[in-house]
């Protein structure tokens, strides 16, 4: 995975790598919860 300026994951500092993982993980959890909500709404309306 590379950023806009071609920064590789292997180039980032340890602390930042952990921070990236936390940010991505939080967003993934948000998306999964959104998905469940949409599914519920879909069931209610169908």
């Amino acid at each position: 995975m590379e950023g806009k300026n071609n920064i590789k994951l292997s180039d980032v500092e340890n602390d930042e790598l952990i921070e990236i993982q936390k940010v991505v993980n939080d967003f993934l959890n948000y998306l999964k919860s959104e998905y469940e909500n949409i599914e519920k709404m879909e069931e209610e309306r169908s």
Partner: protein
Amino acid sequence: MSMLLKSIEKKINIDKEVIGVLPKTGIKQLRSIKKKVENLIEKYDKINNSVVKEMNKRYDSIITIKENSEIESVKKQIIELDNLGISSNVPSSFEKMGLDKIVYNLNGYYKKDLKTINKEIIKCIKKFKEVGVPITKKDFNISEYVTEYMNVLFEEASKGDLESERIKSTFDKVYWKCSDIIPHIIVNIRQFFGIHEEEIDMYYKNRTEKVLASLNLTYEEVYNKKQELVKKMNSLISLDGKNILDSFLNNTYNVSDYKTDNYEKIYEKIISKPVSELLPKEKKDMDSNVENLHYNLIEYYNYLEFKFLIDEILKLREEKRAEIKKEEEEKKNKSKDKKNKNKNKSEYETVKEEIKQLNEEIEKLNLSGKSENTKFSLFKKKQQKDIDSNNDEKILERNKKIMQVKELYAKFDNCRLKESVIQNIGDTTTLLEVLRIASYYYGFLARCIIKKFPTIVENEIHDMIARIKKFVRLNYFSVINHIIIAEKKDISIVIKDKYKLFGMTLTKDNFSEANLEELMKDIQIIKVYNDIIKSNILIDDVRYIINAKEILKR
């Protein structure tokens, strides 16, 4: 923060916004958003996998750090020196054989199960074999009860079954005939030791001489060599990345303590000025002082833990000195009275003689009333159901004497210890040497520990004794090995004054019971921080492992 984190956060914000603004009123719209969210989950899962993969890669590269191979080699040398089988002249062969520990354990038989008791007896049998004086079942002959039980125990032990039904039923049978069976065994062992003490002394003397000659070293030189190796090992471990990392992983150190600002704050507290004001040479010297203080504090802390033993030994010394003074006065007064020979003997000699006399009486009683010259004719007659009341009385008398001699042996141990204390401790003896002498006497240690900690349980006593022995045997000392008992110095002041001379702001209060651990922690943080800088691991790597470990569930 690099562009990568910023760029990811930016993408996330955009994607989040897109999902947020999309209409969710109709079923078609919901299905469309669902598809969109599905795609995003897939996309961010891939990103997450790449990140976790990179994290694992870094984790593996750090966690697989190898310990400096020299550490193992130095450890091996220390163990070899420790297991040479050479012994000090201070303890007697009784302690060298570990019989003091065995007798202590057997004395507390009422707190233990039969299997444990039997293990102790077997251990004792092995010890006698080891020193070249094997004790056989024939030697367990102080009473018919001991003979009956030990015959079975020897047979069953040779089959490797210390829990056999035969042992249990024999013990049960013998116990109801004589509930003092274990004290009888103890006295039997002590008698056997007494008979062979000189041979056993020779065994230890010859073994020590042989080993020292092969090494071309004296006892003190071996001890000093071991001390130097312990110092070297401590230093190697302190600077070893693997050991440093392990100390963080097992929570000995806390990664949040090892931030530069915390280090500087503590340093300032210790020297009363910002560390940045120290010139490079001054900083180097101060780091070295901090390192020495760290080891001194650990030594002092351990000393405080075991000080009660030094106090007890010194109390015994005072008692013995008073006894000697009294004996000398009595000798003077009674020198004209030549008939009163016994009164001129020391308590040690008197008790030793009383034991000898009682043992002879026990022997006589065992041999009495018989036709053939073998032991336990009393017992044999009983077996033959030719019971005569005279023999019963003799058995009772003998049993009484066995219990009396058992008490005398306990008294004798105390006298032996006092003799050793008076012979080996002078005004110029160091605190370490006093503690070392205490460490040789298992029964004494156990009694002192129980006195100090009345609620302590058996296992904790054994563990504490093991720690005391290890402390005096496998440590590098630089404080209590220099302080002699006559000086009656407060060690905390000695340490404080030394480091004040080197520019540290230490007060007596830092060494108080309430503050000592805090001082130790502060000094440790400075020392370990410096060690990490000199080591083959970065604090950043340590912090990464601690944080990533939780995320990666490793």
